[in-house]
């Protein structure tokens, strides 16, 4: 589906927030597949978490890292981008209690969407990144704790440090919603197991199609082999059998 781009701004060095027209709805945790070239190279679409959808305008946040994100980064308002979706499973925390949102780098995108959809929920956000430049959209959360690896913003170190200090973590009432690099997710999964918290993790994997037919994105879980794009990207803590 060709979608008209409303805006595409470089929000931090190398990070872009793109807004485009989108008819239909989506739920927090889901993603869309963006076509990133006019011709055949790069060939495959790239999955992008939905960072929000309001009044027929969807937003995504992406980092220009490689071949597939170079072209989207050059798009301007008025240009078109080909988008299909939404695809994938959704965040579904219990109706009550504090939600602990943990985002690494561009992993904040689905958390931002969830927060917008649930403005009155008690929630605390923990945003981590390599440096100040990698902390995105932290102003989108009411309670926010920041950690950077080089200490250039917030606490120095990993995002798990402020997380485990939070009262709702310490008293085990908090429910985790986490999205970010695989290493971070695995660490959180192990912490949650050790400390007896529950929650959900949004995983990343190379995707060929995004809608369940190429079988290129499987991951092993306690419930058997699952497709990250259909049964995921959101899995419960304790469900994923970590490959690495």
């Amino acid at each position, binding site marked *: 589906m060709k979608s008209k781009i409303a805006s595409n701004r470089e929000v931090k060095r190398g990070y872009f927030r793109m807004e485009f027209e989108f008819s239909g709805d989506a739920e927090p945790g889901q993603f869309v597949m963006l*076509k990133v070239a006019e*011709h*055949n*190279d*790069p*060939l*495959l*679409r790239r999955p992008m978490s939905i960072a929000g959808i309001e009044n027929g305008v969807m937003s995504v946040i992406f980092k220009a890292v490689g*071949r*597939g994100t170079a072209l989207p980064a050059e798009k301007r308002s008025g240009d078109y981008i080909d988008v*299909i979706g939404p695809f994938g499973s959704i965040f579904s925390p219990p109706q009550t209690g504090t939600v602990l949102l943990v985002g690494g780098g561009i992993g904040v995108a689905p958390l931002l969407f969830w927060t917008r959809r649930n403005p009155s929920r008690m929630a605390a956000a923990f945003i981590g990144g390599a440096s100040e430049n990698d902390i995105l959209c932290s102003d989108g959360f009411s309670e926010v704790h920041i950690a950077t690896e080089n200490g250039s913003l917030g606490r120095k170190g990993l995002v798990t440090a402020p997380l485990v200090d939070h009262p709702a973590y310490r008293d085990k009432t908090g429910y985790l919603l986490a999205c970010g690099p695989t290493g971070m997710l695995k660490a959180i999964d192990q912490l949650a197991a050790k400390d007896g918290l529950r929650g959900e993790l949004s995983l990343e*994997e*190379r995707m*060929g*199609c*995004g*809608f*369940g*037919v*190429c*079988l*290129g*994105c*499987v*991951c092993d879980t306690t419930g058997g*082999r699952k497709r990250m794009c259909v049964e995921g990207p959101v899995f419960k803590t304790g469900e994923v059998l970590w*490959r690495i």
Partner: protein
Amino acid sequence: MADLRVRIGALELKNPILSASGTFGYGLEFSRMMDIGKIGAFCTKGLSLKPRSGNQMPRICETPSGMINSIGLENVGIDAFETEKLPAIRQTGATVIANFFGDTEADYVQVARRLAAMEGVHALEMNVSCPNVDKGGIEFGGDPVFLEKLTAMIKKVAGVKPLIVKLSPNVADIRPFAAAVENGGGDAISAINTLKGMSIDVKTRRPKIKRVFGGLSGPAIKPVALKMVYECVKTVKIPVIGIGGIATLDDALEFLIAGATAVQVGTMNFVEPSICQRLAEELNAFCERENIIRVTDLIGTLRQD
């Protein structure tokens, strides 16, 4: 409306635009995004006697204008296919080509016999690019003598349902393999399956595919596919179904002009889920514009003057 019908053995297809095995799931995944009854047929993910969980991850990677996959023939198995998938597929009115494979000759025969008996399976497509466990891992499709024998065995159990044999491009000369299928009584040839390829992640210095080698598909391979399809067409009288890198109507037309009776779209289903339906519509528009009354009048019209 041009007459787009083509025949594969006893089976008449609405139009010559099919979707390729392994890129269209069991069809149902697509019915939300297109009308799967509008395309010539779809080929199921390759089916085996027992369900398979396939290879370790990572299984896919992107390459220039292409991709490599090493899914390892993950599938639900013929039992689940029959009970869980087929009833829903029948509802859609789609024409179904069941792609299948085995580890042994006996496997092949058994799977083919079962599929041939299933209502709603309209034709069989035999994938012979799999290692033969009985023969120490040599591919079933790697030896023309053996391929002819296997084709004949399967033809016997396929009954009235057309048997399509899908050829591997990883051979020095595809023509003896095409001839083997014809001599073995196969109703049609489909070509090509994926080319063997490899890719390395230079950051980790590891193969991008866990199993090191995988199958290359997508627009990158189209010239190789077209050449092999043309060679098959020149070798046999049975229909040839062209596969490999089709992304546009022009690509499909290239195969038809070269003599393919139909085409299959593979990798591009991932990029544009409704591509087969679009190409079928565009083919009709093209024929009308060019005053081609029957699409069969287009097939094999390559000029070399």
